[in-house]
């Protein structure tokens, strides 16, 4: 007789020259699993009768995901963290934040490092030159921003 060949949700045997549009099968997702073990199969009333409405309510709950993101992560539904497009978006956001951060730091430096600030701190002459350089640069950067 033919043996069934469940591979635990793994790759099928035919794997030659896979076109790029074809996604690798994921391990059983919880959504796939619950869809099947709660909704399908042999449904006979057991001795322990749980009101079917309870289960349907639960299924609806799952479908509507009245469950927090934290809970989803706990359940192992966290693949978006590894999704390249999503994580590259996350990376972009991270970059933007870093740039913003750098700009702010630059302005802060300019404000603190301006002639008056430096004088209070009695810096050596070489630092004053440095401070002037920063001071010169800042308005230019602001003009550039204004032009955009």
């Amino acid at each position: 007789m033919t043996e069934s060949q469940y591979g635990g949700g793994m790759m099928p045997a035919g794997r030659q020259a896979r076109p790029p549009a074809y996604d690798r099968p994921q391990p059983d997702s919880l959504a796939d699993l619950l869809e099947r073990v709660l909704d399908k199969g042999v449904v006979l009333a057991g001795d322990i009768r749980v009101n079917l409405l309870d289960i349907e309510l639960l299924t609806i709950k799952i479908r509507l995901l009245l469950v927090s993101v934290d809970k989803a992560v706990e359940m192992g539904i966290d693949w978006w963290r590894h999704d390249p497009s999503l994580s590259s978006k996350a990376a972009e956001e991270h970059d933007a934040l870093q740039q913003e951060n750098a700009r702010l730091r630059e302005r802060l430096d300019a404000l603190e490092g301006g002639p008056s600030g430096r004088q209070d701190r009695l810096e050596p002459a070489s630092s004053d030159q440095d401070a002037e350089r920063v001071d010169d640069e800042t308005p230019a950067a602001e003009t550039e921003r204004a032009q955009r």
Partner: protein
Amino acid sequence: MSDVTNEPMAEPMGGGPAESIGAGTASYVYLAARDIPDDAVAGITGLESQPVRLVRNAGLTAVVSTVDLAEFGEDGLRRNLEDLAWLEHVARSHNGVVHHFGRQTAVAPWRLATIMLDDERVAGLLADWEHQLKASLDRVAGCSEWSVKMITELSADQRTETDQPTSGTAYLQRRRAEYSRQNSAQEQAAAAADRVHATLSGLTAASRRLPPQDRRLTGHRGEMMLNGAYLVPDDRSEEFSALVGELGADLPESRLELGGPWPPYSFATLETGA
């Protein structure tokens, strides 16, 4: 017809009076098959790491294990089914047992949390539903279930306009154009999903379209245009997956996700309405 009669069991055997439901132990049923050899259950455990055992009757075999009624009784289940972590754990254990035996023979998986007071009651169910269960098993013999989902990015490349609308009218026109473009993209995707399903169904023993899954649960991006379940003869599984690959290559805006093989959950079905 069977050597276990059902009528005398209105009183649960060995379970004592009805109020004892909720204390003690019961038999959790994972699946039914025609025959499973005795030595196939050696070392196999199910829920709560309890060993599984076989219950035979009417030419059928059920795989069961003992569960605690404090957890799997009516009150316990009602409470626990609302706990998604508990549910996932039970679902994965249930699936693990079904998978294990499904690799060896044709199985009809039972719905999660089908619990009888004892093995005699399980034997009674096998006798009561003998013909239907055997018909289910015959339907899925030599086949496995596969899942194919089609996910379409309907609005991926529609944010090309960089110019700001100059007036409210221009804005509305742009929105209207976007809307109609999305609508026709959706219709095309729906038609493509129908074609994929029809083509795959041609190769399979049976097929079903399940409702699309909620992306808030799965985390997928785009629209799930197809959530298909396919009963594929095991000797055609390579052909099936190759076909999925070919179909996927022809869908520029969509991707096909293949899952499986699984035990035939969506096809070895039996519902009594009771």
